[in-house]
């Protein structure tokens, strides 16, 4: 029988609510789909009869007892818990203080940044900031300017040194120039490197001091 094999209801149910609703017309002619559709509509009609009702006189008193026990447990537990974990805020505050101090020590632009020669070090150091770099470059310019003036004064004698001490000074100045050249070469690709800047300033300082000594020697 064609009606008993009709699968339209199954197909409609797989497609969704609208497809089932659209089946009404077909169901008028198909007994199988009519029956399926009738059962489909009866499900929500029958559903409210599944609501259950029964007396449970001990349920709320049980709930009240459980709530009281829960409250008592929370009350008893809290002072002990508070005592047990009383050190936590103090420890957290101490840890925060230590971390802040370490942070300040590491990141504060301190003496070494303003005057890199004050505490020369050769370990790993943070990069210079823009402002600090400007200060360092100004210091270098000042040294260069002084060095230039001193070189003019010492120049003729250093070209033809007539004593062993002047020969020594000339060799030292040549070494310093060579080191300064190397450092400037390295700094071209790494302008913010604190260690190289310190080294360069130290070289300038040393060259300035040497030239001052040369000038003194020439005058004497």
């Amino acid at each position, binding site marked *: 029988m064609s009606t008993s094999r009709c699968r339209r209801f199954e197909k409609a*149910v*797989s497609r*969704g*609510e609208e497809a089932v609703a659209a089946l009404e017309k077909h169901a008028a002619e198909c007994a199988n789909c009519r*029956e*399926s559709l*009738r*059962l*489909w*509509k*009866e*499900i*929500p*009609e*029958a*559903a*409210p*009869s*599944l*609501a*259950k*009702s*029964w*007396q*449970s*006189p*001990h*349920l*709320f*008193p*049980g*709930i*009240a007892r*459980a*709530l*009281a026990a*829960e*409250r008592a447990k929370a009350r008893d537990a809290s002072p002990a818990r508070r005592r047990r974990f009383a050190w936590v805020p103090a420890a957290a505050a101490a840890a925060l203080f230590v971390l802040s101090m370490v942070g300040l020590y590491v990141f504060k632009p301190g003496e070494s940044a303003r005057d890199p020669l004050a505490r020369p070090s050769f370990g790993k150091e943070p990069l210079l900031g823009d402002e600090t770099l400007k200060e360092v470059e100004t210091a270098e310019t000042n040294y260069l300017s002084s060095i230039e003036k001193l070189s003019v004064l010492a120049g003729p004698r250093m070209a033809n040194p007539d004593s062993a001490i002047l020969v020594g000074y000339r060799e030292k100045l040549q070494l310093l120039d060579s080191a300064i050249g190397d450092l400037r070469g390295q700094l071209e690709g790494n302008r913010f490197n604190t260690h190289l800047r310190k080294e360069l300033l130290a070289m300038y300082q040393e060259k300035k001091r040497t030239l001052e000594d040369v000038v003194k020697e020439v005058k004497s």
Partner: protein
Amino acid sequence: MHVGESLEDRSRDHFFAKEGVLSESDPPGDAQDEEARLLEGCRAGDVSAFERLYELHGSRMKSVAANLLGNVADAEDAVQESFLKIYRGAAAFRGAARLSTWIYRVLVNTCYDLLRRRRRRPLEVDSEAASRREPELAAPVSDHPLRLSLEVCVKDLDPRRRAAFVLFDVEGFTHREVGDMLGVPEGTSRALLFEARRDLQRLLARRGVVSGSRA
């Protein structure tokens, strides 16, 4: 117990009159005020607030749990556990949903937990359930020839579809409320309900149930 009995009766009266009060998505001002008072009471751990909550929703919670879990003993356990969870969670409840919706959400999740536990320890739970006396159910408010067959088939539904069917078709909540209770959008609640009805239709047909008859 006198208090318990009077509460049961009041809760039962409220249960029968549920359509008039609880099915509305936006409660009237008085109901909102009462919910706010109840929430404050629950946060403070005030037993009378829980008593009122039980009076308003106890019967319906038991019915939902019984249909989700399949037996009344587990349903009572679920309701009791839900009240403890409501007490523990009231302080954190920020009122994104109505209190009455939230407590059913807590209940549904508690039922899911019990179902999961039961799946993990089926033998233990079965023996435990068998040792407990099943309370006598009151006659259904409105009987239907399909009721018994439907009751059997509902137990075979997927838990989420079963929850949508129980909350919407059996208990008469709106899709908005069901969505809030199941933690899904309203559209998903509609889809779950449709799937539940489709599965029930197939299960009933497989049992040879025809419309207007018993199996």
